[in-house]
C-alpha cells in the first residue's frame, strides 16, 4: 500500500513533536491507544485560559506512518483554534486531507479521540463540564 504524499511529508517531517508539563492547569493531555495495532498516541494542548485559544500543541505517537501523520496534522490544525472549534475537528477531515485508505481510518479516529481526550483533560482541570460524548469512554 502506498502512502499519500501528505502522509509521507508528515511522517518524514512531523510537526510539533514533543511534550509539555502535564501538571500545568493550562495544558490538556490526551493519551489514546489502538489495541489492534498497538499504536499509542499522546497529544497535548496549551490553552490561553483568558481567550480559550489553543496556543500550542504537541504530540508523540508510536505507530504507523498514518497514525503519526494524523496526529501531526491534528496539532497543526489545533493551533490558533478555540477549544470549542477544536471539538469540531472530525476524523473524516483528517482522512480527506491525508487521503487515508480505508484500512488506515482507525488512525484518524485515534487522532480525533486524542483531541477530545486532551480537551476533556483541560476542561476538567479548569473545572468545566466535559463533553458528554467522550465521558462514557
Amino acid at each position: 500500500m502506498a502512502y499519500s504524499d501528505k502522509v509521507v511529508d508528515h511522517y518524514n517531517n512531523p510537526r510539533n513533536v514533543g511534550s509539555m508539563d502535564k501538571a500545568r492547569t493550562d495544558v490538556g493531555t490526551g493519551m489514546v491507544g489502538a489495541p489492534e495495532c498497538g499504536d499509542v498516541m499522546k497529544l497535548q494542548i496549551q490553552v490561553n485560559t483568558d481567550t480559550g485559544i489553543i496556543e500550542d500543541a504537541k504530540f508523540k505517537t508510536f505507530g504507523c506512518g498514518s497514525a503519526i501523520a494524523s496526529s501531526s496534522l491534528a496539532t497543526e490544525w489545533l493551533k490558533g483554534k478555540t477549544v470549542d472549534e477544536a471539538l469540531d475537528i472530525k476524523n473524516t477531515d483528517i482522512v480527506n486531507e491525508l487521503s487515508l485508505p480505508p484500512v488506515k481510518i482507525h488512525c484518524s479516529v485515534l487522532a480525533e479521540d486524542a483531541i477530545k481526550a486532551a480537551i476533556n483533560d483541560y476542561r476538567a482541570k479548569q473545572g468545566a463540564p466535559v463533553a458528554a460524548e467522550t465521558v462514557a469512554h
Partner: protein
Amino acid sequence: MFSGPPPSDYFAIFGIEKKLALDVEDLQRRFYANSREWHPDRHARAGAAQLAYAEAASAMLNDAWRVLRDPVARAEYVLKGEGFNISEQRGRDVPPELLEEVFDLNMALEEARNGDAAAKAEVAIALAKFERILSEIDSARDGIFVAYDAAPSREALGELRSLLNRRKYLQNLVRDARAALV
C-alpha cells in the same frame, strides 16, 4: 452418512458441545481419531461422494484443531459466532492508567534502540511487569471460560471481548520489548 457437506461448526466437527473451557488433551485424541477416520486415502475407492466428504471433513478438522487448541483463538471463534465484531472496538479497552505505562515503555524502547543502556534496563523492568499482567489476564480469561460454560451470557462475552483486546495490545508490546533486549 457421507451425504452433504461435513459440519461447518468447529465444535460440531469434533462431535463436542460448544465450550470455552476445553480439555485440549481430549481434543487432541479426538483430532487424531477423526483424522484417521476421514483421511482421504482411506476413502479413495469408496466413490466420489464419500471421497469428497472425507476431503472436506479432513480440511475442516485441521482448521478446527488449529483454532480450538488455542484458548485465545477459540475464544475469538466463539465471540465471532455470537456476533462480537473484533474491528468495532477503538481505543477503549486499554485503561488510561495502563496507557501511561505503555507510552513510557515505548519511549524507553525507542531510546534503547538508539543505544541508550539505561533505557534498556527500564525496558527489562517494564517487560517483567507486563508479562505479569499478561499472566493475570490469562487467569481472568480462564475464569470467564468456566463461568460462561456454566451460565452463558452476553455480559460474560463482552467482558471476554475487552479482556482479549487488552491482551492483544499487551502481547504486541511484550513482543517488541523482548526483541529490543536481544
